[in-house]
């Protein structure tokens, strides 16, 4: 059977399925930020161990309670920031939004860190 004969046996439904899957791929990759250097996931660590894994694609506000105090985290438009913190200097709040894989927000008094994770690490360490 030739390729032409084979293709004749395929249906419009097949084509619709194929196009839907291609659309899902392209749309999914685009919306998850695979095409950009942005991370897809924020990891909130307390005392160096992960507490929360949050998708940057879902806007939300979240309180992180630690034995040293409370931090309020906001995710909006694929970025994350510390909105408020009960620490004295609030340096973490002034750090603003982050979205790249190598960025981090650190609240030293509460030992809370926000890191961005993609599916692969772009850098092994950052000097800052």
């Amino acid at each position, binding site marked *: 059977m030739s390729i032409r004969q084979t293709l004749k046996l395929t249906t419009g439904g097949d084509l619709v399925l194929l196009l839907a899957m291609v659309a899902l791929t392209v749309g999914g990759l685009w919306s998850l930020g695979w095409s950009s250097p942005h991370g897809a996931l924020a990891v909130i660590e307390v005392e*160096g161990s992960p507490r929360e894994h949050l998708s940057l694609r879902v806007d939300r506000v979240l309180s992180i309670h630690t034995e040293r105090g409370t931090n309020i985290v906001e995710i909006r438009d694929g970025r994350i920031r510390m909105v408020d913190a009960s620490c004295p200097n609030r340096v973490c709040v002034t750090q603003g939004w982050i979205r790249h894989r190598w960025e981090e927000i650190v609240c*030293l008094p509460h*030992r809370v860190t926000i890191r961005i994770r993609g599916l692969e690490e772009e*850098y*092994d*360490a*950052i*000097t*800052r």
Partner: protein
Amino acid sequence: MMRPRFILFIALGGSLLWSGCDQGPHVVSRTQYLMGTLVTVTLVAPSEEEAAAAFEDAFQELRRLDQMLTTFDSGSEVNRVNAAAGKRPVPVSPELIAVMEEALAVARLTEGAFDPTVGPLTALWGFEQAEPAVPAESAITAARRLVNYRDVILDRAKGTIFLKRAGMRLDLGGIGKGYAAARVAHLLRERGFPGGIVAAAGDLQIFGRKGDRPWRIGIQHPRDRNRLLGSLMATDQAISTSGDYERYFERGGQRYHHLLDPKTGRPARDCQSVTVVTAEGSRADALATGLFVLGPERAKALLRRLPGVEAILMDAQGKAWVTPGLEGAIEGFAP
């Protein structure tokens, strides 16, 4: 249907069922709050268990060094020296002697731009406190007079350190993290790990390789938090950055950062950031501070006669300069 090997891979990494994966380097890392900052140890390890034991020892060693070098604990070796300032020499560990020798060497190189006796000034400015404020001019002048590395008497034979004048204070914040990173990296290498990074905030000591390639290190852009200046491939090197953006407060529209010039008693204004690449962590750390305080012109002059030291300077106007040895080595260089 495809059989995505990488899914299986995640599965195996996540489960303890199979720990002996031989695909690619097995890189693990741990972070703890130590020395007033975040310390991350990254290792290429054959197994999770071996890495776990090494992490335990690494952080133990870091805690020991912190207890020796800190100025926040009156019982630390450094603070015992400070308490006896103007009175008597204090016997200290050979290790602290070695750190002080390196600190004084960099102080001489930078003509006091880096100074381990900057303690009275840092205490006065109080960057670690909740409500830092700009001190009075008279207080700055008084503190400034107590800062002079030439007034440290280091007796290697007797193993003592003596601060000549009462009120003098050692502050090894500008060298301690680099020293600690180097020390722990050395320990990990001795244990046979083929590669790793000890990162005490921005002070990195890198050893070995990440499998078959060098480690990729990003350099923070001093003015745009969301950007990197570029990245470097590194194997057996220390990389330290001093920037005016890490610890600072703002009063009356002015930014006051923690890199104080011992000559003026105020934050140094001529640089935005200095990154130093050299073999040893303590030197990289101290030089980054010293070169920052020196300002771009004097820093360049010093770098020209220092072999084995590469650097990236960003001056106050945001203009970048790199040593010839780094030219072309910085990936995606975008100052």
